[in-house]
């Protein structure tokens, strides 16, 4: 490790949340150092205490939290011993922080220039013209175009990525030695994430600033970190430099995290999962905190806490690295046995299950004295999709591209403005309310947020039984109950769940209940609207496994709406890439992911942080943000951001071209093989 004095040195930091006899021991004896100019990633799943660690360092804990013990040496002083006014000089000065939610982290009623200037005044003592000049420099440094104009704008006038840049500019104002970034890109789209991460890397190099990067995303760690600290249940369990960590993660928990990541290579095999749930931090632990969930655990793991074991550039907190236990360590973390799959049709059958043609959903914009319609938000603007029986189509795109609206309009939860939706030979768009109601058992939906998708005032049994009741299946109460129990067992929940309320379950369990509710009416198609994006990666693996198993068992088709490319590569058969209300590329998942033809698909794929440095391709940087669907750009919607755009792109929307058998793309650059009848606009 670096010989020079670390810039931040944390030792035995413990933070409790809540008072009384059973506080939450959110951070329990944490020690780590950060050196000048280096990036330390604090990696962990939700609830492991990584954000509380950051807030403890800044002494910005919520009212219920307090630091119990430990020292935080920053430069020459112990931060925990400073008076509040001394600490205020450190905050925003030597040490600054940016937060996860750029949407809410800026004051909505103060112009952004003013908000940056405030930090300058405080820590650099600059105001007036010099201060203003400095603000413009900072805005320029975080690559905000036209800083002079942006100076007077309010946060709501900026996009999410822009806001996070402003947050970074505020953080830079005090010329910090250490930047704490708490999930800085989690709320951003992947192309925007690539921009922000690159910005942070450049600024770090220019300013020799250390970064404490808090994240749950292994990809971001791989892109950014010099060293990695893996956190579990309030403790750091592994501390290593990046290369050795990604080559051979040591702690069983770290290894499990890698194993549960979905990738193309793991297709048709079940993902590794971490059994059980994250332990409650109310409790005191007698042994290793991970022991109960660890496949490799031995007797001592449950008996007393492990000690640190140093092995070259890595440290690990695990009994298995004690002398003489090497034999018990299972190095092999390759994928588990393949589950029993029924033979899936290799190609889509002749008559697809779902077919949409020129599907449109336009929302009117009203203005003027009599609220005349002056325009439309073209959320969905001519979408053609095909899903075969028993297959999975992934619909990918960034936020605001209209992919959720596509899902809801297929389900007729939002009635389409125009176009056709045929499911199993039945046209859904023209059906009356009651006809539609009778057909609804054929197509179901699973939502992103497992916390809001169930009525909190209903028992789980009633939640699952709701569809069964609505369709009159199950004559008697007993029959219905039996059906409900069967569904719950099928998704891996015990039968006694029926008498409990949704809030008693974890996020992953709730997502299982949602799946059970949808399956209970025996649908042919399930629209999965980002079903795993609110979940931790180990829980995501459980849900993906479940969805795959159910497809094999009952032959249901999925429309899988997501922005997560690794999930797509693992689960999807076909992929449709959406940009600003239209499909720009469609084809078998292998073809599209390996040989993307549309520049947008290429950029999207290149922006995904890669775990393995060898497979990393150069990020294709996209300029600017996604335009508003109320006034899409002329010609090809993508041309203002496209690195390859030509004159033609500005004038005409490209027609649909066939790349090969089932691979289609809407791009002027791939215009060599036009298909008859496929031309549109």
């Amino acid at each position, binding site marked *: 490790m670096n010989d020079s004095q670390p810039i931040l040195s944390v030792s035995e930091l413990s933070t409790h949340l809540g008072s009384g006899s059973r506080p939450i021991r959110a951070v329990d004896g944490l020690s780590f150092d950060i050196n000048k100019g280096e990036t330390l990633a604090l990696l962990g799943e939700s609830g492991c205490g990584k954000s509380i660690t950051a807030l403890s360092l800044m002494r910005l804990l919520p009212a219920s939290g307090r630091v119990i013990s430990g020292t935080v040496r920053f430069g020459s002083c112990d931060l925990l011993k400073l008076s509040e006014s001394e600490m205020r000089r450190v905050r*925003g000065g030597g040490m600054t922080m940016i937060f996860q939610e750029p949407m809410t*982290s800026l004051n909505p009623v103060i112009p952004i220039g003013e908000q940056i200037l405030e930090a300058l005044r405080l820590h650099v003592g600059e105001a007036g013209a010099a201060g203003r000049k400095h603000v413009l420099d900072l805005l320029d440094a975080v690559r905000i175009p036209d800083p002079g104009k942006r100076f007077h704008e309010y946060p*709501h006038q900026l996009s999410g990525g822009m806001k996070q840049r402003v*947050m970074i500019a505020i953080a830079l104002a005090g010329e910090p030695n250490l930047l704490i970034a708490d999930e800085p890109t989690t709320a951003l789209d992947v192309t925007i994430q690539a921009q922000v991460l690159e910005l942070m890397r450049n600024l770090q190099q220019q300013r020799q600033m250390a970064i404490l990067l808090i994240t749950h995303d292994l990809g971001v760690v791989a892109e950014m970190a010099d060293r990695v600290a893996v956190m579990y249940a309030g403790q750091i369990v592994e501390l290593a430099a990046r290369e050795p960590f990604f080559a051979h993660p040591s702690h069983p928990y770290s290894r499990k995290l890698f194993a549960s990541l979905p990738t193309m290579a793991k297709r048709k095999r079940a993902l590794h999962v971490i059994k059980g749930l994250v332990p409650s931090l109310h409790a005191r632990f007698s042994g290793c905190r991970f022991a109960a969930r660890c496949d490799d655990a031995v007797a001592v793991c449950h008996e007393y806490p492990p000690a640190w074991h140093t092995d070259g550039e890595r440290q690990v907190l695990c009994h298995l690295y004690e002398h003489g236990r090497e034999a018990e360590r299972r190095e092999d973390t390759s994928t588990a046995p393949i589950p029993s799959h029924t033979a899936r049709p290799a190609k889509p059958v002749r008559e697809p299950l779902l077919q949409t043609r020129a599907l449109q959903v336009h929302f009117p914009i009203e203005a003027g004295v009599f609220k005349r319609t002056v325009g439309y938000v073209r959320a969905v603007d001519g979408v053609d999709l095909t899903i075969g029986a028993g297959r999975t189509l992934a619909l990918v795109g960034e936020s605001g591209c209209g992919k959720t609206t596509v899902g809801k309009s297929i389900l007729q939860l939002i009635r389409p403005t125009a176009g056709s939706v045929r499911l199993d030979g039945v046209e859904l768009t023209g059906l009356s309310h009651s006809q539609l109601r009778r057909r609804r058992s054929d197509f179901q939906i699973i939502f992103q947020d497992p916390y809001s998708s169930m009525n909190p005032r209903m028992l789980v049994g009633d939640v699952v039984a709701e569809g069964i009741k609505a369709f009159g299946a199950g004559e008697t109460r007993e029959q219905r109950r039996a059906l409900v129990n069967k569904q719950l067992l099928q998704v891996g929940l015990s039968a006694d769940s029926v008498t409990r309320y949704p809030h008693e379950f974890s996020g992953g369990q709730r997502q299982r209940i949602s799946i059970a509710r949808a399956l209970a009416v025996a649908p042919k198609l399930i629209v999965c609207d980002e079903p795993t994006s609110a979940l931790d990666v180990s829980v995501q693996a459980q849900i993906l496994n479940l969805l795959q198993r159910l497809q094999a068992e009952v032959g249901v088709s999925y429309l899988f709406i997501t922005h997560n490319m690794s999930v797509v590569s693992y689960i999807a058969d076909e992929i449709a890439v959406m940009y600003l209300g239209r499909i720009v590329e469609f084809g078998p998942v292998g073809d599209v992911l390996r040989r993307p033809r549309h520049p947008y698909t290429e950029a999207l794929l290149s922006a995904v942080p890669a775990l393995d440095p060898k497979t990393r391709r150069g990020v294709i940087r996209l300029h600017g943000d996604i335009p508003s669907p109320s006034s899409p750009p002329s010609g090809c919607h993508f041309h203002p951001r496209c690195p390859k755009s030509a004159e033609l792109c500005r004038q005409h929307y490209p027609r649909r071209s066939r790349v090969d058998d089932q691979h289609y793309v809407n791009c002027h650059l791939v215009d060599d093989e036009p298909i008859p009848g496929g031309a549109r606009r």
Partner: protein
Amino acid sequence: MTAYIVRRLLYAIPILIGVNLLTFVLFFVINTPDDIARSQLGDRRVTAAAIDTWKRAHGYQKPLIYNENAQGLGKLTDTVLFNKSVRLFAFDFGRSDSGRDIGYDIGQRMWPSLAIAVPTLIVGILVNITFALLIALFRGTYIDFWGVVLCVILLSVSSLFYIIGGQYLLSKLFHLVPISGYDTGINATKFLILPVIVGVISGVGSGTRWYRTLFLEEIGKDYVRTARAKGLSEHVVLFRHVLRNALIPLLTGIVVVLPLLFMGSLIVESFFGVPGLGSYTIDGIQRQDFAIVRSMVFLGSVLYIIGLLLTDISYTLVDPRVRLR
């Protein structure tokens, strides 16, 4: 913006028509002019001739909605509906049942009402904000707890007791200010002090508690954490960041009542003998003068609708996020 205001003004028309029809039904259909006359004349065994004379004197003798005997447009205009209700749209309030010009009275009496209501509002807001900020600064401590308890105690006392108590203490016991009455010009000041003090104190409980909730809600937001992460001190955070955001709901809550200040406060004015619109209304109610009550109902509705419109406009002024279309 202009389109929005025009649209809102157009939308106000059906509402005012609704108000007007409602009062018409209440005052002329459920109770016929005969009933009014009878109760005005006092005796239930009053003669039919007397009722007729009274009705003629006050213009209630015409048919309610449709006058068959009139000519042309007069069939519609020569009616009670037109003369007593429709004319309100032109702010033609007509004469009260005791024969006075209501429009003139309103013009005269709105000034004393404003003289009490405006200072009460301003002082009240300042006092409430100060207390609420103080409590918010000490949130989670005993000052916060007892401050809220004090607020609840204060708002559990009927406003009548504040008035009676104020009159007794300041006027009767200490002879600091006159108990009641009013004067013109600068001399009115000494009569205004007590009503304003009473008005402020009776509103301090609910006001402070409400503002405190607003402040605490803002303090919980993410941008406050950002401001602290910049190294700003707690009072800068509170005054520059929290207050600015909390002022939005606060100001707009105030703007909606601004026009209604003209109407004055019924209780305060009648207790302190201030010749404002509030006491005017009370007199109208107590003398069962339907013409006055009807006019005040209409005026109140108009002012309320103006208040709503001003609220929306003030949102665009104080909140950069709101743009009206």
